[in-house]
């Protein structure tokens, strides 16, 4: 083998290893210790206003109805359990939903920011997905950016009179894709490329995670639509009492 062929072989082996040993494709939690300290603090600070808004909105709804505390807690646990379940996947590797798109459609994005950060803390300390120092960055991508986009797309589609299940599918899928883009950009800011800067680095992160994240986003969309379908069949009164789907029924 020539020197060039050797290096191609090396790279191919590295790629095969990288894609072969991935034990499970979780949504993109940045792992503990992966971000430099400055970025940990900065992303945490960016989350603060959203979390404060979520906190006050939850407080307000609790003042009106004290009973919703257990419903909120159940919803948080629901997001956690949904995201910890293995989902059907085409490739055979086991993957997981984020569940935050579903949460945003059901409970609104501001409540999901608080539930999301609690779910992320538990994912870090119970399942070792994500971490305590990267909590700020993960909260921004998964509990704030994704849910807000999901919610916005859902509202937009509904006002454009798009079929309900299609809107749910689009909202969950695009929310998931947006989470993946935000995480890639967060990583790119922390580790800019030597030649192309932040932009080139973002493209590298996007392409490396694409094989696991793109199918995941589509499956997340399908499953969220199926869940909403099931909920409308079994739980219309409960959904209505939570303010979801006024136009149905």
């Amino acid at each position, binding site marked *: 083998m020539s020197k060039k062929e050797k290096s191609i072989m090396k790279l191919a082996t590295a790629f095969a290893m990288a894609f072969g040993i991935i034990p499970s494709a979780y949504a993109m939690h940045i792992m503990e*210790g*992966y971000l430099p300290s400055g970025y940990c603090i900065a992303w945490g600070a960016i989350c603060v206003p959203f979390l404060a808004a979520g906190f006050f909105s939850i407080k307000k709804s609790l003042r009106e109805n004290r009973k919703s505390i257990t419903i909120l807690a159940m919803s948080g646990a629901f997001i956690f359990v949904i995201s910890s379940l293995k989902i059907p996947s085409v490739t055979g590797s086991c993957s997981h939903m984020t569940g935050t798109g579903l949460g945003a459609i059901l409970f609104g994005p501001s409540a999901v920011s608080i539930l999301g950060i609690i779910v992320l803390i538990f994912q870090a300390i119970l399942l070792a997905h994500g971490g305590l120092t990267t909590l700020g960055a993960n909260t921004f991508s998964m509990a704030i950016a994704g849910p807000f986009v999901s919610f916005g797309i859902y509202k937009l589609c509904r006002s454009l009179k798009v079929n309900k299940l299609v809107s749910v599918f689009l909202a969950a899928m695009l929310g998931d894709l947006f989470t993946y883009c935000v995480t890639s950009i967060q990583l790119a800011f922390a580790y800019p490329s030597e030649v192309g800067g932040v932009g080139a680095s973002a493209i590298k992160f996007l392409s490396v995670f694409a094989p696991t994240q793109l199918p995941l986003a589509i499956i997340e969309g399908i499953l969220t639509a199926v869940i909403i379908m099931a909920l409308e069949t079994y739980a219309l009164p409960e959904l209505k009492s939570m303010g979801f789907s006024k136009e149905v029924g």
Partner: protein
Amino acid sequence: METIDSYAYESCMRGISPGFKAAVAAGALLFCIGANHLWISITVLLTMSAVTVWFGGLPLIKYLKLLKIPLGFLILGTVAIVIEFSARPFGYVLFHWLGYYVCVSKIGGVIALKLVLKAIAALSAMYMLVLSTPASEVIGVLKHLRVPKLFIELMHMIYRFIFVMTGTQRLMKQAAVSRLGYNDFRTSCRSFGSSAGNLFVVSLKKASTYYDAMVARCYDGELLFLTEEKKVARWQIIAALCYFTVLLLIFLLVP
């Protein structure tokens, strides 16, 4: 579902004050990330793992399995950092494709090694805490740090409900599998969706039952838990101070 804190209940370090363990773990974590220093990462990784395995009594095999959890992210992320695309060659060129050179820069390998060790060391510091402290005690530490009451209350309840729901979910999955659900991709999607929907309905019903049960026990907006008093011994403080002095010395003296 096997959660990490199920090991915490068996840990030999459960008797140590959770606040103290959290402070040591946080200190080591901050040292790792703040210093970004190869030898500090190695020291923290070795010491924290040793503490968890020796003092905590966790079998080494299990510990290594736990360290492997974020491996996928670690490999993919580091590949993305190390490999560069450029129009002109630099560093070590791996190959040339469509007018672009795929290269690894000369310092790329060193940066990657430092980053991987730092991340694993930070993980081992976090594990020292969560493999010896059940989640309810970690929440207790947050309470002492004056995190808002509502937040703490939600955390306590969510933690409990996670296990309630996992149990329900397991039964539902068993029922679905025994009726030919989860058979191929299509039925898997259907079974998953309808059992998730059903899980949500069941959990809403349970939520209202739990609320009634709480009100029946005089719940008026504050959950009170009986927590064990665990005192910090003097030798523990001295050991922790020595540990951080050593880390500081490594940071200052080793280049």
